[in-house]
């Protein structure tokens, strides 16, 4: 918040948000040959039978830590997301205007996505959300076991995202793959420690762990993976998000959770100010999203009954906003940093449709509730009717 840096003539935030939305819509419709959604509102494609619901799997991927249009959906950015464009969007319902009106920090914003309430917790503290999470609603209302809801998250700050005080013992189990790797390889070099503990928003700070995170010894019992094999596989991967996807795929095969939430984070290397690393992060995340979707198509528990939702937790600052430093941060609260997109594909969704209607990031939980059959009573969002 710099008084002098915000001083400029600006068009209204609403105008910018609409412009971003139109740009995404025009591009997606042109490039992928999709249909405008308002013409298609009608009977729900969702099968509402309870038997079908019990088999329904939902995977949520947050495309983090936030990417801008000019590096993704704008013409100059399309080279960075070939998998989204060519493989996933043609199968998707694409929402061009998803607004985050909350605090633009990755943990608090992801917690808001998971509760359906704009949380106000300290972004850099290891504290649980103040409101019930989607995992607690899901498990409590539907009487699902602990093995049915999992979170795979990037940094230690996310270890409390699995549950609030609402449903003690009824939340998701949180896996922090970097933390696991750190414990598994304790005693190695300083550089290595730095990478594993890195939270790009505050690179030199690591909150204390506390909560129901997945423990190292559970690797063997739950993921049937020895510590040695885990480390050995990690050696073949180039980034923390690749490690997260490896763990997620292992969970899908061995635990087949019905609700799986994966938070990507490689893109947030942008905070270091190195544009090339930010672009590499986007390209990697694009590839990993497709990899997860492809994994869902071949896993027997997931094939044909899985809905995948992909959305950034928020965007990043616009080049034109003098209060920020372009792609590097998400501090200004400008329209570019608040307005993103979402795609939903797979079971129950309409393929190849673009929706311009503004939705909010807190609408995800009520939408999941409508899909899966639970009641997110304290959520402040609204179910997205185009998904129902």
């Amino acid at each position, binding site marked *: 918040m710099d*008084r002098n840096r915000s001083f400029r003539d600006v068009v209204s935030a609403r105008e910018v948000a609409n412009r971003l939305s139109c740009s995404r819509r025009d591009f997606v419709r042109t490039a992928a040959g999709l249909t405008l959604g308002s013409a298609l509102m009608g009977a729900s494609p969702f099968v509402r039978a309870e038997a079908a619901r019990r088999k329904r799997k939902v995977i949520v991927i947050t495309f983090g830590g936030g990417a801008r249009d000019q590096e993704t959906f704008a013409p100059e950015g399309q080279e960075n997301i070939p998998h989204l464009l060519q493989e996933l969007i043609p199968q998707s319902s694409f929402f061009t205007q998803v607004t985050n009106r909350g605090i633009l920090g990755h943990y608090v914003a992801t917690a808001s996505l998971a509760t359906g309430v704009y949380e106000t917790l300290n972004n850099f503290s290891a504290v649980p959300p103040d409101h019930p999470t989607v995992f607690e609603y899901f498990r409590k209302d539907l009487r699902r076991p602990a093995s049915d809801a999992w979170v795979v998250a990037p940094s230690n700050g996310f270890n409390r995202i699995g549950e609030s005080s609402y449903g003690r013992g009824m939340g998701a189990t949180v896996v922090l793959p970097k933390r696991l790797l750190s414990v598994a390889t304790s005693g190695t070099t300083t*550089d290595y420690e730095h990478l594993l503990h890195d939270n790009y928003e505050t690179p030199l*700070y690591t909150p204390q762990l506390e909560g129901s995170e997945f423990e190292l010894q559970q690797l063997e019992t739950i993921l049937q993976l020895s510590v040695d094999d885990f480390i050995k596989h990690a050696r073949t991967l180039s980034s923390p998000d690749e490690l997260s996807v490896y763990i997620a795929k292992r969970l899908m095969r061995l635990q087949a959770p019905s609700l799986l939430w994966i938070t990507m984070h490689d893109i947030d290397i942008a*905070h*270091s100010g190195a544009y090339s690393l930010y*672009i590499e992060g986007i390209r990697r995340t694009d590839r990993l999203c497709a990899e997860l979707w492809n994994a869902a198509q071949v896993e027997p528990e997931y094939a044909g009954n899985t809905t995948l939702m992909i959305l950034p937790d928020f965007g990043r600052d616009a080049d034109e906003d003098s209060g920020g430093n372009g792609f590097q941060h998400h501090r200004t609260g400008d329209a570019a940093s608040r307005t993103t997109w979402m795609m939903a594909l797979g079971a129950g969704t309409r393929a190849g449709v673009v929706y311009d209607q503004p939705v909010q990031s807190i609408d995800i939980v009520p939408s999941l509730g409508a899909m899966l059959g639970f009641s997110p009573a304290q959520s402040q969002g609204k179910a997205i009717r185009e998904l129902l």
Partner: protein
Amino acid sequence: MVPRDLSAEQFAGYPPQARKLAVANLAVLQKLPLSFLPGFLHELIDYDYKFPVERAAIENELTTLNSLSPAQIDAWFGPFAALSLSPKLEQLDWINQPAEFLEQESAHLWTTGQQDAFRAAATAYGSRLRAAAPVTPIPIRRLGIAVIGRGVESYDAPLFRNLRKHGTWFTQVKSENGLELLLRGVEARALAHPLPYGHWYVDGGQLADHNQLLTCVSYSALEPVRSALLAFMQRQIQRPGMGPEELRSNLARLSPGDLGLDKTEDDVLGRFQLKLLTEGSGTQIFSTTFAQWTAREALRRAQPLTLVVRFAPRQRQRPMNELLSNGGANPELDFVGSLIDADMGAYYQWINQERLPGAEQSSFLAWFEGHNQAVAIGPTLPRGTESNSPFDLGKLLSLALS
């Protein structure tokens, strides 16, 4: 403590010139809302160590504030006064530690959903202030130069995509003695218009030979300072209970002497460099980030007439598998990644230059060092065009400035 209770004694801890200015303008400071005033004091408290342009801006702002009628004060500051702050914020020592207040105010505004309202209030205030400020013509056309891609042997992907539409893209540049020609042109400007902090040369590596009239900042020269800062940060985060806000506050409290920057003869520049490293994100680690952020801050704060930024290769970000196998090795350099960083950095340098007075007459030149590609932007150069004329860098500079 609220602004209307301010007294002259409370500025006793300010440096001499800042204190004098605060006391002389006490009456108007007392009229400003708490959501606004610490932001102004954050600038004022460093008045003694600010660049001439910044000092003039503070003086002009005070002159404008003193000229406002009560009704205008209400109109200008009503949106700030309407923001709801907590009693806890009022209890902070916002007079002597405005940076800490701003940190907590920012968190409060985000948490209470008032950030957008603050942003709108600040934007409106800035527009009014700018409209009221006297227009001081600059003596020569402003010039920015970005030299990118040092050490890259070949690169086939397109460069300068963001800048090309604003100027002419030259594809047959004669690269011989390019840096020397550019620095010679800059030297001539500095000799003709020798303003303090008016002509800058920033290098992401080691400085090339240059005229002493230039204000210089280099990543290599600050290596001992960067090491001392990283060691300080490591010690801080190992302290029990240390959180990111406290770490930031402790960094803000560092003085040049804490990191060995007091040995420089130029206290203003020493403090500028300290802030580059303590307030910039990634400036301690990546030379490309350092060069880009330095350019941004130099333009925002010192508003130089001339700014040359030469990017150098940064250390390579090593992938996880490599760190697992070979954690302690010295990092290699990432030449191509650094070129991509610098290409964006050059664009940001131009954007930041465009925010300054005289933008419509300003000139800019970006060159792929050692190669034949450059973009020149100037009032007489066509936009979005390509030229294969075989000019050297001296000629290109003349064209940009013509």
